[in-house]
């Protein structure tokens, strides 16, 4: 059964190749069916593979072919099947499938439809490689592959320069992270001589070659890689810009899957991170700072997708906080629930944008509840889920992060609670401004409003169901123990990642749960009074007076800061190189060098005078010289 795993990436790859090379004359529905069918087959196969891991961890390496073979070390193209990779498999292919189906409706009028589906397939392929690879080298292939796909999809509407800029920004910032990952890999390889997970983590012996500051540095470098991919401070700026891509892309890549690659990598390397307290602290602080930053910026954003994007940044920050505190399985738990409700929210926002004819500004929306009933319901479920109100998915995962923080570090606990409160507030602000109140758009838009087709709403419904019940896979430990509901996920992952065992009484945990719920409800109520009862609206850009508000709306001026301290100097160096080094030094040098062959050529040219006899004479002369050596 485990052998089937090598089939999983093949489906999307075949889908991609088929659509790119043979998809020219096919109808859009056929293309969509091929694209989502490929993912569906991968999903089915993933379920089969997943069942092998259900009863006790049973890690298996499935080798496909040799990749790099040297006397010193080998890297195979082989796949690892263990609880961590299979659970990622499930939600990549599952959520991926839903988003593919959604895309058929969302992108139906787009002229680049084939290209879009093909790219999505390719993306899923690389994501699967990333997750399934049995070594850092294989993961790196997928890592770069998803980067490329992300680039292509952000800049999907390449005719608009802003999209291209966003794509470039994402790509370049990701490169910075990748450099960290490469350095981390190099350090690991340098000290242990292998990049394979089973050598590094399962047999333990290899990993012991790494200790002290080497260990800390390696872990921090790996984390820099994760920062790039998962948009952590200071490499987070690309993610909100990446919303330039089509909404399904935002849902699939920039919320549910690719950005969680960083979490995956850190969880995969949990042995390294838990051995390094320094690196863990770095991860924790970077995570919580990102969480607060994202949450505060999200408060003031008016673009529906930007709000969700900063919310993603903030949630990712929370996940890293959990990772930093050693709660790897809880971070993975939050990744999964987050994948459900964030995909749901993005797809819902896509549905709204679709209905609004491309409008993304929530100040121009309002009162969509009656026009888009299904979207409204599912969006509301997503909002409740992310806000952490029981018994929806977000509550369980987020509550456990807070619980861990309570155990580990009171500062973290406070900050995480704040983030949680802010989350509930900005999400309900978004919800109220979008779906409640009265319609603020143009008359034409109002006339145009319609519920999305079934092909889009069904994925919404499925995701909404998942958002409601997804949390039960990780029922809180103590309370669950008391109620005889096991924490299934922890149990499932316990042999794969390092475990933080919470030692908490039923009472404490219950109080924390209630506290979290109350915080969320209060935030929700504030949002309700502010935007529903008082009918307050988000301010237009030129109405903003408060400096705090201005700072938040401008995203703490981080982009401007980067512009000043990084881009300007680099530009200056580049200008210097272009204006001075290139023409004055390199060009001149090349010109001078080129004189040598042309000079020699003008000499040799004389020999080619077109007289056959001369050629024959030369040939005979050569023959004579050659033969005279025999005499």
């Amino acid at each position, binding site marked *: 059964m485990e052998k089937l795993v090598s089939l999983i990436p093949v489906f999307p790859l075949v889908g991609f190749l088929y659509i790119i090379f043979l998809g020219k004359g096919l109808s859009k529905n056929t293309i969509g069916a091929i694209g989502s069918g490929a993912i569906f087959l991968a999903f089915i196969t993933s379920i089969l593979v997943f069942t092998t891991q259900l009863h006790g961890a049973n890690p298996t390496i499935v080798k496909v072919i040799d990749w790099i073979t040297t006397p010193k070390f080998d890297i195979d193209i082989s796949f690892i099947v263990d609880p961590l990779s299979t659970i990622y498999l499930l939600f990549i292919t599952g959520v991926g499938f839903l988003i593919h189906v959604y895309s058929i409706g969302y992108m139906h009028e787009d002229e680049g439809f084939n290209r879009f589906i093909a790219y999505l397939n390719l993306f899923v392929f690389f994501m699967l490689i990333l997750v399934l690879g049995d070594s850092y080298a294989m993961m790196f292939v997928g890592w770069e592959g998803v980067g490329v796909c992300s680039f292509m999809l952000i800049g999907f509407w390449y005719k608009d320069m802003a999209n291209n800029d966003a794509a470039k920004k994402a790509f370049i910032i990701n490169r910075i992270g990748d450099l960290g990952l490469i350095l981390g890999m190099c350090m690991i390889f340098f000290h242990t001589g292998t990049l394979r997970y089973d050598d590094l983590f399962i047999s333990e012996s290899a990993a012991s070659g790494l200790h002290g500051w080497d260990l800390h540095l390696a872990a921090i470098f790996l984390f820099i890689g994760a920062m790039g991919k998962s948009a952590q401070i200071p490499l987070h700026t690309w993610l909100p810009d990446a919303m330039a891509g089509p909404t399904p892309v935002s849902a699939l890549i920039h919320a549910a899957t690719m950005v969680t690659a960083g979490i995956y990598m850190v969880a995969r390397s949990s042995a390294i991170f838990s051995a390094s307290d320094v690196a863990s602290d770095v991860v924790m602080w970077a995570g919580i700072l990102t969480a607060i930053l994202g949450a505060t910026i999200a408060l003031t954003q008016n673009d529906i997708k930007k709000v969700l994007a900063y919310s993603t940044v903030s949630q990712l920050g929370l996940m890293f906080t959990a990772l930093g505190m050693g709660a790897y399985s809880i971070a993975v738990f939050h990744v999964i629930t987050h994948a459900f409700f964030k995909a749901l929210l993005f797809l819902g926002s896509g549905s709204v944008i679709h209905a609004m004819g491309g409008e993304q500004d929530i100040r121009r929306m309002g009162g969509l509840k009656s026009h888009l009933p299904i979207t409204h319901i599912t969006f509301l479920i997503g909002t409740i889920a992310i806000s952490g109100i029981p018994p929806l998915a977000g509550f369980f995962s987020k509550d456990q992060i807070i619980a861990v923080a309570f155990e580990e570090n009171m500062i973290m606990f406070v900050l995480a609670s704040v983030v949680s409160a802010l989350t509930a507030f900005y999400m309900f602000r978004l919800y109220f401004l979008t779906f409640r109140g009265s319609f603020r758009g143009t008359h034409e838009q109002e006339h145009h409003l319609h519920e999305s087709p079934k092909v889009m709403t069904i994925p919404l419904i499925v995701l909404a169901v998942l958002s409601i019940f997804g949390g039960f896979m990780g029922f809180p430990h103590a309370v669950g123990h008391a109620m005889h509901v096991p924490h299934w996920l922890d149990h499932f992952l316990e042999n794969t990642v390092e475990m933080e065992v919470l030692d908490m009484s039923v009472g404490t945990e219950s109080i924390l749960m209630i506290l979290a719920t109350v915080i969320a409800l209060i935030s929700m109520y504030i949002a309700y009074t502010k935007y529903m009862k008082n009918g307050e609206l988000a301010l237009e850009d030129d109405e903003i007076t408060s400096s705090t508000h201005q700072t938040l709306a401008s995203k703490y001026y981080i982009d401007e800061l980067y512009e000043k301290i990084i881009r300007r100097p680099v530009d200056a160096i580049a200008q210097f190189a272009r204006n001075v080094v290139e023409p004055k030094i390199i060009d001149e040098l090349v010109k001078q060098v080129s004189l040598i062959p042309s000079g020699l050529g003008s000499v040799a040219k004389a020999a080619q005078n077109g007289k056959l006899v001369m050629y024959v004479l030369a040939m005979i002369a050569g023959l004579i010289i050659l*033969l005279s050596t025999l005499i």
Partner: protein
Amino acid sequence: MLTEYAFWFLSFVAIFSALAMIFSKNPVYSVLSLILTFFAIAGHYFLLNAQFLAAVHIIVYAGAIMVLFLYVIMMLNLNRLEEDKKSTWMKFLSVAAGGLLLFVLLAVVKRTDEITITAQAANSDCGLVENLGKVLYNDYLLPFELASILFLGAMVGAVYLSKKELA
């Protein structure tokens, strides 16, 4: 005895008609002289017990290649070739080169006296069709097939080149 005389006779004919080939002003005579040379060479092959090769030599060279030469010369009506005057310097150079090459080659041949080749248990049948065919179709099958492809290419090329539309 007879074969020895035959060798000298054939060699004389070959060399004499080869000289006639390069010195005759009329290209038709050149062609005919060369044909004579080829007959003499075919005779050599017979003497060396390579009957198959001799027959093929006649068929291919005399029967096909030289006919083509003759055909082209007749068709282009090149009865008298315009030979431009060459500079004496060039003539001298040519003579020197040719003479030197002859000298060097003769010296090399002379050297072979010192190298003794122990003649193998003479298999005088090696020129027979059957033996040649066995070698050709067993050891040299690939070159043989490639040669046929070469031929096909040459044929197509020749036909294409002589199409009127190109002119």
